[in-house]
């Protein structure tokens, strides 16, 4: 009855709600990747860290009956993967992209292996804060039921944006990402900085994974990630390595991801599967629109192997 009251308004509302719900893993993975790429390295393994993080979080949450240890465990697992990537990449002649792909497959495979027993049991969810109490309409209430991780992610984006300019660590990260030579001349060790940056990036990807298994969709399956980890890499480039841009782009991708379910919910029965593909089409369109055959990307960290 209420659904008919708001009618087609349900679509934009579902997109807004979906953007908030679906975007959270994008926010964490892309902020992590922004940190890593700002240090001059690209980590394609984040997809594997996301999936492994999802599995770890779910498993630990089931065992401890609380989502928070799961979240921490996911971050720790991501950190380990990130540090491993950073450590291997310091050796001469090692390609960060190839290692990333290897870790992506390794992380997913390992998660499937360890995750088998956890497909059945159910874990406690991460808490959400209802911001929609002022409204009587259940759709509005549902859309504005915001998970704490989304709020933390938003705060983190603002913090990183500030920290890249106003803290010593932020400046050091940018120096290393832009010119290894300058960094060495300042007595900094680029490998160490990149190791830490990749580790932190991995930890954030793990948190993104925890959100997937502990809140939305909220269960552990082998198909839990539909390439969010990889799309986040595209998203960072689209956002020009700016954390606020990452946040906005994550919302955009999240909104696109919610398009399919939203149309389905208002009764579109034909072709909504095509709209499920919206995030992927958006990735493609963005990559094409922001690339050029004859110039390198403006604003890219100078040491990044893909944009050199």
């Amino acid at each position, binding site marked *: 009855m209420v659904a008919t009251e708001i009618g087609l308004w349900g679509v934009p509302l579902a997109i807004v709600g979906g953007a908030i719900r679906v975007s959270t893993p994008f926010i964490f993975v892309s902020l992590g990747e922004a940190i890593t790429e700002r240090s001059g390295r690209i980590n394609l393994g984040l997809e594997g860290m996301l999936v492994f993080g999802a599995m770890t979080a779910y498993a630990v949450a089931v065992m401890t009956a609380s989502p928070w240890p799961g979240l921490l465990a996911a971050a720790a697992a991501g950190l380990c993967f990130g540090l491993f990537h950073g450590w291997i990449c310091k050796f001469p002649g090692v390609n960060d992209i190839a290692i990333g792909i290897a870790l992506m497959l390794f992380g997913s495979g390992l998660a499937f292996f360890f995750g088998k027993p956890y497909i059945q049991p159910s874990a406690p969810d991460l808490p959400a804060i209802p911001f929609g109490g002022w409204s009587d309409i259940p759709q509005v209430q549902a859309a504005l039921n915001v998970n704490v991780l989304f709020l933390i992610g938003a705060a983190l984006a603002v913090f990183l944006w500030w920290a890249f300019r106003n803290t*010593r660590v932020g400046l050091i990260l940018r*120096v290393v990402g832009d010119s290894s*030579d*300058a960094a060495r001349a300042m007595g900094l060790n680029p490998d160490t900085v990149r190791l830490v940056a990749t580790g932190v990036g991995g930890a954030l990807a793990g948190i993104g994974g925890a959100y997937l298994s502990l809140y939305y969709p909220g269960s552990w399956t082998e198909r839990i990630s539909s390439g969010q980890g990889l799309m986040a890499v595209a998203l960072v480039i689209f956002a020009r390595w700016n954390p606020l841009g990452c946040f906005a782009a994550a919302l955009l991708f999240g909104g696109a991801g919610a398009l399919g379910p939203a149309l389905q919910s208002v009764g579109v029965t034909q072709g909504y599967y095509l709209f499920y593909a919206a995030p992927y089409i958006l990735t493609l369109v963005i990559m094409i629109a922001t690339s050029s055959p004859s110039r*390198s990307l403006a604003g890219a960290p100078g040491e990044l192997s893909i944009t050199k």
Partner: protein
Amino acid sequence: MSQTIRNKAVGVETIGMTMRFGAFMALDDVSIKVPAGSFHALLGENGAGKSTLVKCMMGFYHPTSGDILVAGREVDIASPRDASALGLGMVYQHFTLVPSLTGAENLVISREKVPDIIDWRKERAELAAFMQRMPFKLPLDVKVAELAAGEKQKLEIIKQLYLGRSFLVLDEPTSVLTPGEAQEVLGLVRDMTRAGDITVLMISHKFHEVTAFADDITVLRKGKLTGTRKVSDLSQKQMAAMMIGDQPIAALDSRAEPKPDAEIVLKVKSLKAPDRTGLKSIRIEDLGVRSGEIVGIAGISGNGQKEFMEVLAGQRARHGGEVLIKGAPYASTRGEARALNVRLIPEEPLKNACAPKMTVAENIAFRTFDIDGNGKPVSWISAGAIKAFSARLVEQFKVKTASLSSPISSLSGGNVQRAVLARELTGEVDLLIVSNPCFGLDFSAVAEIRARIMRARNTGAAVLLISEDLDELLELSDRIFVMSDGALVYETPVAQAIVQTIGEHMAGHH
């Protein structure tokens, strides 16, 4: 950083500095003395040991034996950190500023102690106060990438002063500057030495700068000290003699009389191409090069010369316009280059003119390996013929290589350039396009390469010479164009060329 930054010049001395790399003696018992507040020049050919010496002073290398005295006291410099603690700083030939950071960010982050959270309001106030006392005025709030080369060089020097350095090593500080900028920067640096704020040791190969600004010079040759003299006691000829010793130098052929009505070999009409960033484009409205003349193109690095060269070499697509060679449209294919006798000597020859891992013989035979003596394509390539052909050229152009089958990347820069010259200057040459042919080469190689270019001109080739070295252009060219911001903005016959005017056009002041 609440205390104000004060610089006070210190003197530095090395005693019996010796540096051995395996069996190779890079520095052999070198003692030099740079008194406080002096402007000292360090001269020498490539491989003479200049950089080894300053790297020992800066703590990058640990000398095999020898001592360093700073302000008269013996010190132990184990790392660059120790050197900076003693007030020793170095401005490198290539910029060490971080391009995507602003000037202010670059200065603050290079400091020894940076607070965890940077209070930009306080830092800005302190920087403004510091800049008040500096002779240069610079915008500190724009990204370094957006600064001109001269501004970057000034910022490098300011950075050293900001860090409280009192002894500065400048490694070829003017190689990226216009003559005007070079004069300004060196003049200001000299004023600071006169005021007793800093001591300067400058590595240079430009005699006119040394003569104009330095107090003393020290010359190194093959790792040994040739001598230290007062600049005022020496002529440029004597300096050159100190640098190269008694080895013979190829003399430039006298210039054959140019014929103003000679055939126009290369004609470029309203050529347009995107530049490196893709945001701007280069535009060559009208350029003609006649047979038997050298047309020089001057300009500061990054004003489109490289892109122009790449278009002519076929490495870069053009958006429009025409390149005609002897009236025929030219699209830089191998067939056209062969038919029209077009030869190229690009900059960074190892990267742009060689396959680095292929052998010297193969590289030299790139133009000819697939044709026989009569210019007919062959179906079977003869390794023997390639070897014989290359052996002859290696001999003729004095390429020093361990063997014909060594990879060309194992040769020194000068010998790679000689091998490329051998390939490009053999056979009939109607058009020769050259870009920065002598960059980073030593004295005798430079003289020889210039002599060969002049000889090609005298035998009737049209030569287009793109160079960042104005002295080279003035020595070789018949006419000089200036390229600035992607376009040819000025033309002058070399007889009427005024360095000042050329420099102003290079800087884009017109």
